[in-house]
């Protein structure tokens, strides 16, 4: 497979994952804004910080009103991180790797872009937002379904999955970090009574409210939420789950190509360092520091994969 094609598959999947994640976050923010009008602006600010768009937003606007933030995050083409921009990037990458994906995957990606382009022709009204966010997630599910149902399990599939899980791990870590950091300005506050509703939104944004209850009962406890999102190997958006998949896919590539890469070693090291310590230790040493280091390590791994498999000319 061409290095460029591997890179295209990797990024196509990253962008698809990213657009879904934005929709999830906006959904969580919107829910808070509906139920607690007082902290709505804070909540939107934290959503912007999570997706890394706060600086760009503040260059354009002075306050964090819902309609403005929503517009910026969904359909503003001057925002390279808006759902519309990201979907376009996913589609451009799919076009680039047209020869490595099935007709179904291509059509699903292309249709998803056309649907959203059409949806975002006008400003999204508040009453339409739930429907719109639903559509984004549905489109994303359609592409994922096409990938899982039609793509041959070759190296191309592995690169696509690597993109998905690198991005997802990044997203989950960011959600946790921003929430935690904003909620707990000082380390001394760890364990103090927290705003449960805010932690609920974290669970909501990763579609894990119900499954969390199965495991932990009715109370929302920050340590347990963090444990669930970091160490649980069954929760599809948890860091440990993502790294399990990253390991699998790097392992398949290794078997296919008969070559152990630096990236494989690096992924093993990340698992060892970040997913095998008890949550109490993580909290003792500082969750924020832990997450920052993890994000950097995750990013280094992405760059190492790029290098090992020659995505670009070196």
């Amino acid at each position, binding site marked *: *497979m*061409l*290095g*460029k*094609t*591997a890179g295209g598959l990797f990024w196509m999947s990253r962008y698809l994952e990213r657009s879904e994640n934005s929709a999830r976050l906006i959904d969580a923010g919107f829910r808070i804004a509906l139920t607690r009008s007082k902290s709505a602006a804070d909540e939107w600010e934290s959503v912007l910080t999570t997706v890394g768009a706060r600086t760009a937003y503040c260059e354009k606007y002075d306050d964090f009103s819902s309609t403005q933030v929503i517009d910026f995050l969904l359909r503003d083409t001057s925002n390279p991180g808006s759902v519309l921009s990201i979907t376009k990037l996913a589609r*451009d990458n799919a*076009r*680039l790797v*047209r*020869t490595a994906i099935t*007709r179904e995957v*291509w*059509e699903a990606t*292309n*249709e998803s872009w*056309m649907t959203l382009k059409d949806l975002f022709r006008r400003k999204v009204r508040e009453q339409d937002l739930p429907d719109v966010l639903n559509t984004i997630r549905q489109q994303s599910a359609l592409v994922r379904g096409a990938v899982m149902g039609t793509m041959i399990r070759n*190296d191309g599939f592995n*690169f696509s999955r690597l993109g998905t899980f690198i991005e997802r791990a990044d997203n989950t870590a960011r959600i946790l970090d921003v929430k935690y950091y904003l909620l707990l300005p000082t380390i001394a506050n760890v364990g103090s009574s927290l705003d449960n509703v805010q932690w609920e939104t974290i669970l909501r944004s990763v579609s894990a409210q119900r499954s969390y209850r199965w495991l932990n009962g009715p109370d929302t406890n920050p340590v347990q939420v963090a444990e669930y999102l970091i160490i649980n190997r069954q929760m599809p958006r948890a860091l440990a789950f993502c790294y399990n998949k990253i390991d699998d896919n790097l392992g398949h590539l290794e078997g296919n*190509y008969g*070559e152990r890469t630096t990236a494989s070693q690096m992924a093993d090291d990340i698992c060892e360092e970040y997913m095998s310590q008890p949550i109490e230790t993580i909290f003792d040493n500082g969750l924020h520091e832990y997450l920052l280091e993890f994000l950097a390590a995750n990013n280094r791994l992405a760059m190492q994969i790029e290098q090992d*498999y*020659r995505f670009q*000319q070196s």
Partner: protein
Amino acid sequence: MFGTDDTLRAPYAAYQKWLDGEKADRLKRKTREAEAFFRKTGITFNVYGEEEADERLIPFDIVPRIITAREWRKLSRGIEQRVRAINAFLYDIYHRQEILRAGRVPVELIAQNEAFLPQMIGVNPPGGIYTHIIGTDIVRTGDDQFYVLEDNARTPSGVSYMLENRETMIQMFPELFSQIAVQEVGRYPQDLRRSLAACAPPACSGKPTVAVLTPGIHNSAYFEHSFLADQMGAELVEGHDLSVQGGRIAMRTTRGYQPIDVLYRRIDDDYLDPLNFKPESMLGVPGIMDVYRAGGITIANAPGTGIADDKALYSYMPQIVEFYTGEKPMLENVPTWRCSEKDQLAYVLDNLPELVVKEVHGSGGYGMLVGPAATKKDIEEFRKKLENNPGNYIAQPTLALSTVPIFTNAELAPRHVDLRPFVLVSPKGISITPGGLTRVAMKKGSLVVNSSQGGGTKDTWVLEE
């Protein structure tokens, strides 16, 4: 569809019978469905310089163009003869130049031609083949009268539309294909791959690796490039994926460099190799010409092939066919005036309102004058261009082109068409896919069928015997 006496032509009888049973509403709906289908599959072409609408659909018409097996036999024999002559001409022109010595083609037409590549003199392309893929543009003026309008011997495009048009028709009107026996076109990608593989270079060991070279995602024909690579199961590469490695052209894969044997390139000669041609070009592969000359890779179509489809040379094609095949051409040229010649220029200038004037090196319907459709002002402007640079133009009469019906506003209306059959050449022989791409002028009375000028396409049926 109708003969000169307004009677239904025989090949359309079965289709007409089906059409009579159809409701206009259903056909209207099918037209819309076809558009959605093309959008969804991403069958678009890019228009340069139009930001918003940078991906456009080529209008598709649901009424097929129908050709009988007998007509097709005649046509395809004529095309085959012409393609043989073109390859022989190319070999000759880059070797002994006997046709020039014999005085059948003027020397300056070659010597001063930008499409002629001195770098190709004495080079022997693998299998002796220069043009592996040709699209010959044909127009029809009467029942048995076909003319060749153009030989696209360098990078003919449109074959993906031929294939997708058929696919769309089968999806929309499956019942038609069970009622009427139409010859298949769907094997083209496999044929293309087989044909290209048969032209592998001396350096190839084992199963030939075939790749398609595209200028990239922003090229107007990117859809076609990716479509062909996809359908052939070949890699789609750009210049920056390739480099010279150990005397071969190799592509950068996830496991290191892997040599390519046959490169179906869809970029022009000038951009192919910055070391040998345009130094600023980022599209090509530095050093590919040296590898090529040493037999390390097959380039399809061969560099320098463009000399054969140059419009200035077009008017000599009948002589070229006769010179190399020893036979009269089975397909005629459209009569052509060469503006480089004084008396012919005078005639052209006197008769501009009746003529079509084209740039010698132009393509895509740009830079041409269609006399009967032009305003007085257009004509006077073009007259100046002609006087300033007569060698840059040829002129042709506007033929009484045959028309075929299109479906418009719930009824059929006649429009002018041309036909581009696709030809594959390998040492094993020449194959022509039955049919080709029918391009149609969507505007009433218009003769311009180019997609870049708003022309559309339709499915082309060659009936079974």
